[in-house]
């Protein structure tokens, strides 16, 4: 009998620290598989951000740096400018990327910095116990929007993929989800495309992944998947927002 599916070499043996059913784990696996399949693990340098995925530096089986909250794109820029031929990526949450790190992500994109960003949008700050993120939906209850997010007070959720796609330096942006197998497969394809854009030196690439936070959403993991599909996806449409990739076989 042949192995149909096994754990990728792109991950270390350290067990994930995520809550049960948190899709950070799936996304980690996809990134690791993409790197393994593209054969870039030995020249990859990843940047972990501050959020639940802060320990990503223990999980990805490649060189890693841990960046200050929101600054992963700046750290990745520093690395990439030293090693332009290595594959550099960041793994960032929505609080990290869309709140405190707004300037860094916008300017990395505008510079066309030749890095790949994995952007995990779970509509809240998981690590700190479930506060509002810039991506929190209107009406969504969080620790800091106990009466539900109100547009008049907190403004509107930001669609980062759309916003960043207005910038010329961007080579590839796609929004994906991992709430079922079909979307997991598509997400992996997207992540591979993003790395390919970097390998082809096209410029900045980012994959936004709609993810769950069952713990802070107060749902079972299965309910959480459904919430992504029913509540998040309508506001955050999936799809390719920018693509300058050369066709590859």
């Amino acid at each position: 009998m042949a192995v149909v599916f096994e754990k990728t070499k792109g991950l270390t043996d350290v067990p994930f620290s995520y809550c049960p059913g948190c899709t950070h784990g799936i996304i980690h696996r996809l990134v690791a598989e993409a790197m393994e399949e593209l054969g870039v693990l030995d020249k990859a340098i990843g940047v972990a951000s501050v959020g639940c995925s802060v320990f990503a530096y223990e999980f990805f089986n490649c060189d890693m740096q841990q960046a200050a909250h929101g600054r992963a794109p700046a750290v990745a820029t520093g690395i990439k400018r030293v090693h332009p031929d290595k594959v550099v990526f960041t793994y960032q949450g929505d609080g990290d990327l869309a709140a405190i790190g707004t300037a860094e992500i916008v300017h990395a994109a505008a510079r066309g910095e030749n890095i790949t960003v994995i952007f995990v949008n779970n509509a809240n700050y998981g690590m700190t116990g479930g506060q509002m993120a810039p991506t929190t939906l209107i009406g969504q209850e969080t620790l800091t929007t106990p009466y539900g997010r109100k547009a008049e007070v907190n403004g509107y959720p930001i669609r980062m993929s759309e916003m960043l796609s207005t910038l010329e330096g961007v080579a590839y942006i796609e929004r994906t989800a991992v709430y079922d197998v079909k979307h997991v497969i598509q997400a992996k394809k997207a992540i591979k495309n993003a790395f390919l854009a970097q390998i082809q030196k096209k410029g900045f690439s980012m994959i936004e992944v709609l993810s769950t936070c069952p713990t802070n959403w107060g749902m079972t993991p299965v309910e959480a998947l459904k919430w992504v599909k029913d509540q998040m996806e309508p506001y955050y449409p999936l799809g390719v927002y920018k693509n300058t990739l050369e066709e590859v076989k």
Partner: protein
Amino acid sequence: MEERIIFAGFGGQGVLTMGLIITYAGMLEGKNVSWTPSYGPEMRGGTANCNVTVSDDEVGSPVIIEATSVVVMNRPSLDKYESYVIPGGKLFVNTSLVDRKPQRKDIEVYEVPANEIASELGNLKVANMVMLGAFVEATKVVKMETVLKALPEVFGKGKEHMMAINEEALEKGAELIINMVSTK
């Protein structure tokens, strides 16, 4: 009088609540009290504990190194906290989930099969209340009646339906100690 108590177990076993109830009851009885929880990501499916002080005097260090009592709800907590009990102090062990005996000989050990009793009561979630009943009966840190007064305050609105079973669990735990002592 100063009681310094550590409650420890898995996250989800309700050890923070146990501590909170004692703290609240202590306050109701006019004592000086302090409750300090563990916090942070290790709580995520990891272990939890809290330090509780109930004292006639001002509460000094909120962090307890020399505990008058320690309550352990699982094995890792026994391993970690057995040494914290002062000589002559009390150690409460949830034997349902702890598969070894304490090694200390200079302390009083209370063995409480809390999960089993809780499951007899029909709700595994009240294992902590069983243990708490035993603890209160054995230590008399606070009166059981004050604990009953503290319960609704700590649980807050929406948990009224749980009161009966919580009280029953407390009683069962207390009974266990009464029987233990009378048979000693």
